[in-house]
């Protein structure tokens, strides 16, 4: 598999790798995939008072495309408001990273992790 320049850029230089404290009320944590399937994406968002995402962090286990998608997700998330974040989908990742069809799964993991992180944050806010 010959990866696109976009994938390689993110993969070699991942943005925003790391962890936020998942206990904080303004941090949403989402995870998708499983170790048995060979890929896991964890995304965390820290939502500011104005409703925008201030910080996003990822950790990923999986192929390079998965890592690149998770990295790109944090870039897109930072500065976005939650509604905009919620519509980020796998197709957007496939396009931005020029992913081949066999790598659809990696993009879906990023989408699912975003949804899970937003859901986690919203749950916390409702409590």
């Amino acid at each position, binding site marked *: *598999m010959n990866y696109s320049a976009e994938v390689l850029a993110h993969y070699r230089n991942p943005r925003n790798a790391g962890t936020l404290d998942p206990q904080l009320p303004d941090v949403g944590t989402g995870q998708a995939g499983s*170790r048995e*399937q*060979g890929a896991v994406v964890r995304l965390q968002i820290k939502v500011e008072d104005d409703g925008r995402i201030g910080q996003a962090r990822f950790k990923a286990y999986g192929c*390079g495309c*998965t890592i690149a998608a998770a990295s790109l997700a944090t870039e897109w998330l930072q500065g976005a408001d939650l509604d905009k974040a919620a519509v980020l989908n796998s197709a957007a990742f496939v396009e931005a990273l020029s992913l081949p069809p066999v790598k659809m799964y990696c993009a879906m993991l990023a989408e699912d992790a975003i949804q899970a992180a937003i859901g986690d944050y919203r749950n916390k806010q409702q409590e």
Partner: protein
Amino acid sequence: MSKRPIYLDYAATTPVDPRVVDAMVPWLYENFGNPASRTHAYGWDAEEAVEQARAHVAALVNADAKDIIWTSGATESNNLAIKGAAAALAHQGRHVVTVATEHKAVLDPCHELERQGFEATFLPVMPNGLLDLDRFRAALRDDTILVSVMLVNNEIGVIQDISAIAAICHDKGILLHVDAAQASGKVAIDLQATDIGLMSFCAHKTYGPKGIGALYVRRKPRVRLQAQIHGGGHERGFRSGTLPTHQIVGMGEAFRLAKQEMADDMQRLAVLGRRLRDGLLGLPDVYLNGDADQRVATNLNISVDHIEGEALMMSLPEIAVSSGSACTSASLEPSYVLKAIGRSDALAYSSLRLSIGRFTTDADIDAALQLIPREINRLRELSPFWED
């Protein structure tokens, strides 16, 4: 290709030794005759070259040159051996025995036999990748007509105890086929001393060209086989088709060099392989796949826990390696060989196969030992499983 990565994927294919290239090239334009042309010097010269190459291949494994049949590679050799022998022996029984860790070029012909109404047993292996000989013996039945066991595994490099397996088959009067694609030039093979009826070879894992292979078909006692490619009856009637002189000459020269240089090559590679192995197994949570001793020194298959194999390879553009066999690396399934030795999916996904060969240098190993640990650390930093 711009700057060439360090090649540590000799188990996928090897460069053709420049001496082999030199031997091949004159048979393309200058001496281009068809070995089947019996009526002029172009044909006679080609035929002579073909027979000389046959003798070289036979010599590496101490066989009679007459027992060597040319094919297009080990895949075809395996197909001819397995489907050809099963068809010829179907009247005696319809059960074949093989091993779960065989190459697809053995497994798929066995599956084809199942479709044809044969029964195939795919034996499990022990966690070290080796066949349990008691279990093997117990699997042989009165209607077992064929056993197929590979000598050196392409993914994890373990060496099956073929002498013991051959002795068991001999006792029971069952024909044994051995896929030796990964073994030629690495492991000593003596077909006079071991009762093996069929053995598959290819050139391209032993510094010869791709697209040429051979099948050893013992004549004494005679192994029966049904041809799989028909059309003129070349090669004792077992394999029709124009013989590609340059390819055959290449395989002959590669096997001649292998015989001549195997001892020295393997001694040197044992040192390099050991260094690579010690360096990588010294890292935390890195595991060796396959038996620690019963293996070829040229193969190192490791599982690097907490990260994924493809990602690791992608992190190493300076090094050409593979994760699992070259034939299955495109799929998203974890390697069936690693599953068969009992690795979890996670460890199977995190595997890396490094295989070295004739042109590997000390500097290559230095570079690998510098780059691979660095990237393992980098990826582990990104992994949700490393910190946890």
